[in-house]
């Protein structure tokens, strides 16, 4: 493919994605909108953890905690303190970052899987706090989340709003907020990864000593990336809370952290697109299985004793994590890239005399 035609294809693909995303709420029913919104918030969180684990090589099993900080800080600040909701959201993200910063003496010094075990403390300590600090978190039953209100526009079912004959409820409105937040989060992370910080992070992952010798402050970078990724976690937490309309402590447990790790491994470690693809995959899978459980073999309806959709999804993506690492280094994103390289080559084999033999395959 020539350079120009590649730009055209790329533009067409992106155009299609944007159009599909904007049109979606006019056609999809509530169930899928909600699933899509979860996927968006998961994507934001996964981008954050991919900066940490994929790009810098630091494992974290504690990111569910930062989601909890974001969600509960938003609830607390907007309900109890009475901050305007957008400000509450921003401060919630900053607080999640501060929580990550408070962990930085550990996040900066430990590397890789060691850090993974240490961050288990965030989960178990966090769960303890969530269940016990009742005035703040509502204890076991959680707390209702006030809807976001931006310049007088409320992201809730009331007041009624009908656009092109489609009633625009909370989910439809949040859909666009989610898209904007995700786009901004992705653009920022892409900037970080493509610039000097990204190079430094990759060098730390690949060879810590070499990074240090070349003048990268390794500990400070590790701590910094940890803070950044915890802010992404907090942002994802705020989004999840807005979609759920209720924050319950149980949700922010160890399994959620595992979900996030599965996302980045399946999607592709170290890139923004990989995180987004993985997040969509892992969030859609259980919902798809739930929706079509009666027509799928081996999957039983919930509560009937067989493999429930949630369990089947978990087993599937546990297996996906293993398969991806064994056979598809680079994840689904890596698979797409490889296919893109292989397909022209196959064409070349089929028509050896073809005039369009690629001069620049890359």
């Amino acid at each position, binding site marked *: 493919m020539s350079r120009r035609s590649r730009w055209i294809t790329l533009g067409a693909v992106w155009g299609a994605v944007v159009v599909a995303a904007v049109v979606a709420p006019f056609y999809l029913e509530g169930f899928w909108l909600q699933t899509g919104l979860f996927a968006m918030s998961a994507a934001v969180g996964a981008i954050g953890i991919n900066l940490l684990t994929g790009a810098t090589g630091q*494992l974290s099993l504690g990111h569910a905690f930062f989601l909890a900080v974001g969600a509960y800080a938003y609830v607390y600040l907007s309900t109890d303190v009475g901050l305007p909701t957008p400000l509450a959201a921003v401060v919630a993200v900053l607080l999640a970052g501060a929580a990550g910063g408070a962990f930085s*003496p550990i996040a900066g*010094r430990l590397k*890789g899987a060691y850090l993974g075990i240490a961050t288990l403390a965030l989960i178990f300590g966090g769960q303890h706090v969530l*269940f*016990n600090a009742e005035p703040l978190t509502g204890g076991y039953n959680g707390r209702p989340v006030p809807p976001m209100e931006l310049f007088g526009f409320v992201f809730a079912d009331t007041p009624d709003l009908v656009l092109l004959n489609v009633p625009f409820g909370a989910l439809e409105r949040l859909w666009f907020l989610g898209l904007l937040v995700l786009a901004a989060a992705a653009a920022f992370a892409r900037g970080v990864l493509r610039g000097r910080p990204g190079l430094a992070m990759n060098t730390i992952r690949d060879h810590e000593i070499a990074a240090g010798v070349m003048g990268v402050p390794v500990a400070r970078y590790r701590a910094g990336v940890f803070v950044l990724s915890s802010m992404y976690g907090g942002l994802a937490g705020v989004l999840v809370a807005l979609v759920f309309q209720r924050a319950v402590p149980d949700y922010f447990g160890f399994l959620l952290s595992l979900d996030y790790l599965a996302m980045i491994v399946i999607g592709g470690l170290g890139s923004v697109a990989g995180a987004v693809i993985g997040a969509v995959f892992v969030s859609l899978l259980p919902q798809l299985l739930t929706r079509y459980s009666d027509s799928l073999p081996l999957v039983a309806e919930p509560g009937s004793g067989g493999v429930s959709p949630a369990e089947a999804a978990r087993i599937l993506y546990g297996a996906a*994590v293993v398969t991806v690492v*064994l056979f598809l280094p680079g994840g689904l994103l890596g698979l797409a890239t490889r296919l893109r390289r292989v397909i022209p080559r196959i064409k070349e084999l089929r028509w050896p005399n073809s005039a369009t033999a690629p001069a620049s395959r890359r």
Partner: protein
Amino acid sequence: MTTFLELLANGISVGAVYALIALGFVVIFKATEVVNFTHASLLLAGGFLVAKLHPALGFWLALAAGVAGAALVGALIEFLIIRRARVGSHGVLAIVTIGVDILLTTELTRQIGTDVLALGDPWRDQVLHLGPITIAETRVVALGVAAALITAFLLAFKFTGWGVAMRATAEDAETAALMGVRLGRVSLSAWAVAGALAAIAALFLCVFPTPGLDRSTTAAAMKAFPAAILGGLDSTTGALAGGLIVGVTEALMSGYQSQLAFLGRGIGDAAPFLVMIAILLFRPAGIFGTKELARV
């Protein structure tokens, strides 16, 4: 004072069980440099086998089957997955073990469901009176068995050919291979041993005063992670010390919960992790861990 001694005795006994789990964890790390997150599910697999087989086979045979089964599962994970994964960094291997853990834990907890499975142990709920202290018989047995197993393991580590091969691999895998140590066998045996130790630990985590094996057993098993890391991931001594620290802290914190009410309910479950953080703040490599140094 009596309460304190009782709690301490219980703590040491539970700590010895954590030390067993942590020891397996450390052995795998030393032999293959993989941080093994499947450990909790290995433990669950061992316990599950014992619980399911004891009505048919009787307790002792079931225990043997559980130990063998968990060892086999460990060996299979190494043989089928860890050995085949051609990845650059050990961090990615840790993520693979997380994937395996998701698989195993989901399936096992699904099998267990909401049941609480008894393990059919011969000690039941008998208690011993040692002077003023009352302690469950299971706790005494746990301490004895754990101490015996740990001693046997450390002796084997020091004096047998297998132990020498293992230590040589941990020191420098490449040189060990050149000297004729079969790395595949070393790592396979490490996983098998870790599985067997985890199965024994599962038994003692699920007997009286715990009601039995249920979904929450994995959570109990996860307390061995802080035990392993606070002692130092590459140190067998560290695993023992870590296990005891975690066990005693947990027992004391839960025992004096009413006096520590300001810390909230269930502080005993969070305590091992808080202790780990406190220790890692001062010694990032753990108490007995070797600090990584590099000459540039």
